[in-house]
Structure formats: structure tokens, C-alpha cells
């Protein structure tokens, strides 16, 4: 009996234990499945925030463009100071993320760091600061010694107006066409300045039939990228046009050495230049004012520290921020549009026409000049304001024909005149279309 009781007790105990174990296994399985569910949900949420989940072909294309820019800058040294920040900016701007999550990281999201930095582009703050630095580092002596070369700086702005007309024919609004046309000036800061005023995405350019406002498209990114890309490609674009429009005899032409320029002339140049140009084109005041101010800092000889800061630290800081934010503004959804393709095509056309305009105008000028004063038409191409690349191209083309014919000093004159010319045109377009 006792034995039967013990057996019963053990069986009951085992049954109880089995029940308990079975129940805890069930609970454990439940807990486990819940945890797994939570983990997978968390991983899923995390994955949704990653670049992989938000990646589109557009992002891939733009990242490839950014990498190409960096490659061109490092391998071929095409404008590395611009292409490295822009290329990196393109990659930064095209890292995919969940747009609607309110993370405040995208350049177009109010409150993000990039958005704050981009403010300087949208409001046209950076270009005048760049012009200050350019003024402080530019020596206008070659232009002062041979002032007739200033006309080449005006002639080479032909591309701006022909491209403006081309953009109108392609259906762009006049304000947008003006912003696109300025690419022909071959001046990145001027292009950004004008685009930020005329085609910034918030400027009202008309009304629909229903009375709703129509805004200009935001073309700052494509215009800036086109301008800087073609500036970097000046050594590729210009030489064929220069050779096509000149004879060997013209390319061999030697120019008389420039005269020495006195300090008084150098000091008077920014003052006279500022007053004359801004009275005619006051809209270009932010650009021309800063350009001539920077030059006065340099030439006055009494503000060496200010001139030094303007041409080194200040311009470097602004170039870094400008390049990076312009690059980042090329977010695939904003940048990869048919308009961007058209802008790139028009930009190439503008560069070609500007180069041709400068060369042909130099040839026309030679018809009226004394033989000893004649101009080598190659320096006409330097009238586009890609400083100093287009002057360097004129020098190299001259050296190709005659290794002892140095044109660099002469080419610098239309080159710096081109900077003034393109800023004047920007001011005029702003007056007409702003």
C-alpha cells in the first residue's frame, strides 16, 4: 500500500512537473516569438531609414557623377579646388534617406545644417565674397597697360546673349533663360548670383488662369554645375574653336611688351572702375563693388592684412562651403530633369559662342589697329572670365605655334576684363528680368 502510494505520488509529481515544464516552454516560445517580432520590426524600421531602402537609380547616377568629378579633379587636376568640394557635395546630397521622416538632414529640409549653409547660395551671399577674394588676388596691370584689351572682355560675353535667346526658343521663361545664359560668361560665382535671383524656385514669374502664382523653377544647381563643369573643361572646349577661327600667321603674331604701370594707376583703377561700371549697371553692385573693393585693399598698400585674408582664408572658406552646398543641391529628384539636360547643352553652346566672339572681335579690332599694336587673336578667347584657365589656354596655344611667343601676360588682360564684363551683363539681365 505504501509502495502504491509512493508510486502514485511520484507519477503525480512527474505529471505536475511535466505540466509546468510544458507550460513554461509554451510561454518561452511565446516570449521568443514576440521578441523576434520586435527585433524584426526594429530591423525593418532601421532598414527603412537606411540608404539601401531609399535608393533609386537617380541616386546611383548622381553619386557616379560626383565620383567622376572627384576623379577628374585628382587625376587630371581639372579645377580641383572646385571639383573636389562639388563632387563630394554631389555624393552628400544624393545619399538616400527617408525624406518624410523629419530628420532635418537634406539640403532642402528647413532647419538642416546643409539648408543653413545653402542659404548663402539661395540669397546670393557667397558670390560677392568670392569676388572680394578675386579682387584681392588680381593684378590688373596688364589691362591698365593695354586698356583696349578691355573690349575683348565685353566681346566674349556674346555667348551669354545667344544662349539667352536659345533658352527662350527652348521654352524657358525669360527669367530662367537669363539665368541659363550667364553660363556663357564662364564665371561660376556670377552664374550662381544671377540664378539665385532669377531662377531660385521661389520667385513669382506670373499667374495661372485661375490666379494661382507661377514660380520660376529652381535651376541654381544645374546652372552652377554646368558653369563649373565647363570652366573645368576650358582646356578641352576652347582650343579647337581657337584653331578653327585663326590662321597660323595670326597665331604666330607677337605683341609688344606691356608698359610698366605706376602705383597711382593701379590704385585709381578700382575706384574709377567701381564708379563707372556700377553707375551703368547698379544691379551688379554686390559683385563689382566687392571685386573692386578687394582690388583696392590689394593696391592701396596700407591694408595688407585685409587683402591677405580676403585672398586666402576668406575665399578658401567660402569656396569650400559654396562648392559643397552647390554639389549637395543636385539631389537626384531635383536635378535629373529634362531641363538640366537642356541647360548642359545650352552651357556648352554658350562657352563655344563666347570663345568665338572673343577671337573674332580681336580679328576685327586688328583691321583698325596699327601693325605694331595688333592683337594676337588667340587672346580673344581669354575674354571669357574663367580666370586664369582661359588665359593659360591662350598661352599654350601660342606656344604650340612658336615656343618663344609668350601670350600669358597679354591674355590676362581680356581675362580679367571678362570678369568685369560678365558681372556687368549679370547686372543688366537682373535689371531687365528681375
Amino acid at each position, binding site marked *: 500500500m505504501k509502495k502504491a502510494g509512493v508510486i502514485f505520488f511520484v507519477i503525480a509529481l512527474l505529471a505536475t512537473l511535466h505540466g509546468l515544464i510544458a507550460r513554461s516552454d509554451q510561454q518561452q516560445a511565446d516570449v521568443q516569438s514576440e521578441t523576434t517580432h520586435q527585433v524584426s520590426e526594429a530591423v525593418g524600421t532601421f532598414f527603412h531609414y537606411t540608404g539601401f531602402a531609399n535608393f533609386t537609380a537617380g541616386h546611383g547616377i548622381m553619386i557616379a557623377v560626383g565620383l567622376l568629378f572627384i576623379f577628374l579633379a585628382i587625376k587630371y587636376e581639372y579645377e580641383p579646388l572646385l571639383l573636389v568640394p562639388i563632387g563630394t557635395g554631389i555624393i552628400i546630397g544624393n545619399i538616400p534617406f527617408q525624406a518624410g521622416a523629419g530628420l532635418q538632414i537634406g539640403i532642402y529640409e528647413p532647419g538642416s545644417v546643409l539648408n543653413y549653409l545653402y542659404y548663402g547660395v539661395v540669397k546670393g551671399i557667397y558670390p560677392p565674397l568670392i569676388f572680394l577674394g578675386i579682387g584681392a588676388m588680381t593684378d590688373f596691370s596688364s589691362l591698365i597697360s593695354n586698356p583696349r584689351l578691355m573690349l575683348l572682355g565685353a566681346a566674349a560675353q556674346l555667348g551669354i546673349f545667344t544662349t539667352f535667346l536659345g533658352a527662350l526658343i527652348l521654352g524657358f521663361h525669360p527669367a530662367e533663360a537669363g539665368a541659363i545664359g550667364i553660363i556663357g560668361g564662364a564665371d561660376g560665382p556670377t552664374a550662381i548670383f544671377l540664378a539665385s535671383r532669377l531662377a531660385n524656385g521661389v520667385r513669382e514669374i506670373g499667374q495661372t488662369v485661375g490666379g494661382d502664382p507661377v514660380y520660376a523653377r529652381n535651376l541654381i544647381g544645374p546652372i552652377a554645375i554646368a558653369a563649373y563643369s565647363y570652366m573645368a573643361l576650358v582646356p578641352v572646349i576652347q582650343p579647337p574653336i581657337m584653331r578653327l577661327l585663326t590662321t597660323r600667321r595670326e597665331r604666330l603674331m607677337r605683341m609688344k611688351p606691356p608698359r610698366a604701370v605706376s602705383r597711382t594707376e593701379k590704385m585709381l583703377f578700382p575706384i574709377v572702375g567701381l564708379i*563707372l561700371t556700377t553707375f551703368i549697371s547698379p544691379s551688379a553692385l554686390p559683385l563689382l563693388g566687392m571685386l573692386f573693393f578687394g582690388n583696392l585693399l590689394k593696391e592701396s598698400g596700407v591694408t595688407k592684412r585685409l587683402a591677405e585674408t580676403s585672398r586666402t582664408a576668406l575665399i578658401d572658406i567660402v569656396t569650400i562651403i559654396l562648392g559643397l552646398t552647390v554639389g549637395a543641391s543636385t539631389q537626384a529628384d531635383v536635378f535629373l530633369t529634362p531641363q538640366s539636360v537642356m541647360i548642359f547643352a545650352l552651357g556648352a553652346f554658350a562657352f563655344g559662342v563666347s570663345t568665338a566672339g572673343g577671337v573674332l572681335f580681336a580679328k576685327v579690332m586688328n583691321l583698325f589697329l596699327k601693325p605694331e599694336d595688333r592683337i594676337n587673336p588667340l587672346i580673344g578667347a581669354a575674354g571669357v572670365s574663367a580666370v586664369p584657365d582661359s588665359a593659360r589656354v591662350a598661352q599654350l596655344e601660342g606656344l604650340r605655334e612658336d615656343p618663344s611667343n609668350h601670350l600669358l601676360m597679354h591674355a590676362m588682360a581680356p581675362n580679367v576684363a571678362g570678369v568685369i564684363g560678365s558681372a556687368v551683363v549679370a547686372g543688366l539681365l537682373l535689371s531687365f528680368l528681375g
Partner: protein
Amino acid sequence: MEQLSYGILISIVGYSVTLLTLALLYYAFRYLPKLLHLQIRRRLQKLGHHVAHNEDLSVKGDEAAAIAMALHLYFNELHDEESTRITIRKIPKTYSPWSSKIFGMRHPIRR
């Protein structure tokens, strides 16, 4: 079409004004040296230099280089004027330590 004709008008006016602006700058800097040279010309005339009547008073690049080189050579070779007389004077001090044994390296080691 209306926009295009407006664009053509802007282009013609804009291009002309740009040319005009830089042409004005050209004329300003074509005649500025003449204005600046007026004073120099007057001073040269007073001193009786015939160059005062030269049309162009500016210094050419090669002339400036030659003057700069001459100045460079002159200032680099500049030194005090000397009497060009060589004097050998006997110095009263006879002792000189240049070969002194106490400064030699071959002293015996002290133990």
C-alpha cells in the same frame, strides 16, 4: 514669339551696354596716364630735359627690367668707401693660445 522678340531686344541692348561700359573704361585708362604725366612733364620742362616733349613718358617693360637689374646690382655690391691703403701694424700682444698645450686633446689620464 513675343518673348523671343523681347529677348532679342534685351540681347541687343545688353550687349551694346556691356561694350559701352568697357569702352568707357578703356577711354578712362587710355587718357589717365596722360593726366598723371602732366605734373611730371611740367617738372621735366622746368629742369630742361628734352624728354618732357616725348608723347609717351611711360617706362617700357624691358626698360623697367634693365633699371631694376642695375639697381639690384648696385645695392648688392654696395659697401663702405675705403682708403685703399694696406697697413700692416705690429700687435703688441705676443701671446696667442692657438697652439696652447693646455687646450690639446692628448693629456695623460689622471688616476
